[in-house]
């Protein structure tokens, strides 16, 4: 899986594609950790191109959220598809990782 990265100044958008799982989640999580270390702790993960997420993908998002919050930032997710929303809801993780409809909405206030 590839992901695009867009530094919009006030926040960084990461755009993973395809399956967000055991194979593809670790590189994205590593990138989030690097961004947070560089002081870019406001991150939007744009999930519009992700068609499947598994528990490892969720773990990367939760881990990224924790890292960002510890540095006074946040990680928000945008444009999640049905499967992603279903899994977030099933695990109740939508309570701490609430999906925004668009990147524009997610970045609100940044």
């Amino acid at each position, binding site marked *: 899986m590839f992901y695009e990265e867009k530094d919009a100044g006030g926040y960084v958008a990461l755009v993973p594609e395809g399956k967000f799982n*055991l194979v593809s989640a670790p590189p994205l*999580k590593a990138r989030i950790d690097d961004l947070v270390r560089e002081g870019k702790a406001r991150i939007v993960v744009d999930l519009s191109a992700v068609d499947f997420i*598994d*528990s*490892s993908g*969720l*773990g990367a998002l*939760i*881990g990224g*959220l*924790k890292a960002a*919050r510890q540095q006074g930032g946040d990680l928000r997710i945008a444009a999640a598809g049905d*499967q992603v929303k*279903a*899994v977030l*809801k*099933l*695990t*109740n*993780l939508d*309570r*701490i990782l609430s999906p925004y409809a668009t990147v524009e909405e997610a970045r609100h206030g940044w």
Partner: protein
Amino acid sequence: MPLEPSSGRLEAEALAKAPAERYDRVVRLAQAIFGAPIAALNLVGTESQYTVASVGYPTGSIPVEESVCRVTVGQDEILEVRDLREDPRFASIPAVAGPPRVRFYAGVPVHGQSGQAIGTLCIFDLVPRELGRTQREMLGDLGAVLERELAVQEEMALAGQVQRLMLPSEPPDLPGIEVAGRVQPAREAGGDFYDWLVIDDRYGDRQLQVVLGDVMGKGLPASLIASEVRAVLRGHSRYYDIGGAVRSTSQTTRHDLEANGRFSTLWAGRVDPASGRLSYVDAGHGLAIIAGPRGPRRLIQEYLPLGTFIEDTWMQASDTLAEDELLVIVSDGVFDVLGDDYDVALTKLPAILDPGLSCAEIVDIVVDYAVSHDATDDVTAVVARRTGEDRS
């Protein structure tokens, strides 16, 4: 004549059943390096030889009497035969006397964890030939590479066995309730687990505790964490109600889960066989239901899984399991094949609601369905029902 059973033969038999993709690369390399039409990893069991990875020859098994590699394994050093027709041990075996009419053979024994030779990396040619000294050394080197792959595979298989042996193996010593569970890991080991145990509470009541957990990720790393969550929950369960046990488990495992960046969903409940009283906690698992003739109801709560950086309250909820109802808990490996859709899952319920089915049969129906629909994740199901035998 079958070979003497020994630890080497038994290891070969066990490995012959394990996934073999990890050997393909080395076998292909051997075929290319020696320019031979056939290269294979053959495991030599007591009665059969198993070709588990090969180029130019089908995988499968032949009777051990028809094998060349049994001799290589027996002498435990490289065997090279310029022309198999000229060797009375091999001249009449089917692959020499008939198609593919192999002539040349070279094989290096590969060893298992017992230290005994369990099979060979071998090459065959259709014309007589000889290996040079460097080529023999190279065959030895490739055999050593393959041995390491076999060791990894065996280690994984043993870890999986350890995990399986930690599952409950006996029905609970508690009249009035029937329970069954099964886990089918996507790899040798995995992050799914189930458990049950009998809890004697302070009032002298006996309840069955049933647990299904799913640690994120797959394979050995997830299984290590799963073992911890299982053991810690067991430990705390003796002293707390189910809510307290889950909260204590979260506190105890928090460091290890967070340090590894992993979370675990958990559904844990306790059923009183006499009254059907059920108390439970759903820590982000979301996949437990009571199913019966009056329709299904989900046993879900709003709580987070264990191991996120937020400590939740995990207060227990209650319900009642009637005698004509089933308690069914599955892992998301089952849910995935149903398109992660609860409504689709409900359409599958009638198939398991036949009162004539035992809990073990129902578990098999659920797990086999998921596995046959190409589940990519670990697949687990636990089913319990009251049997009405406990009227004391």
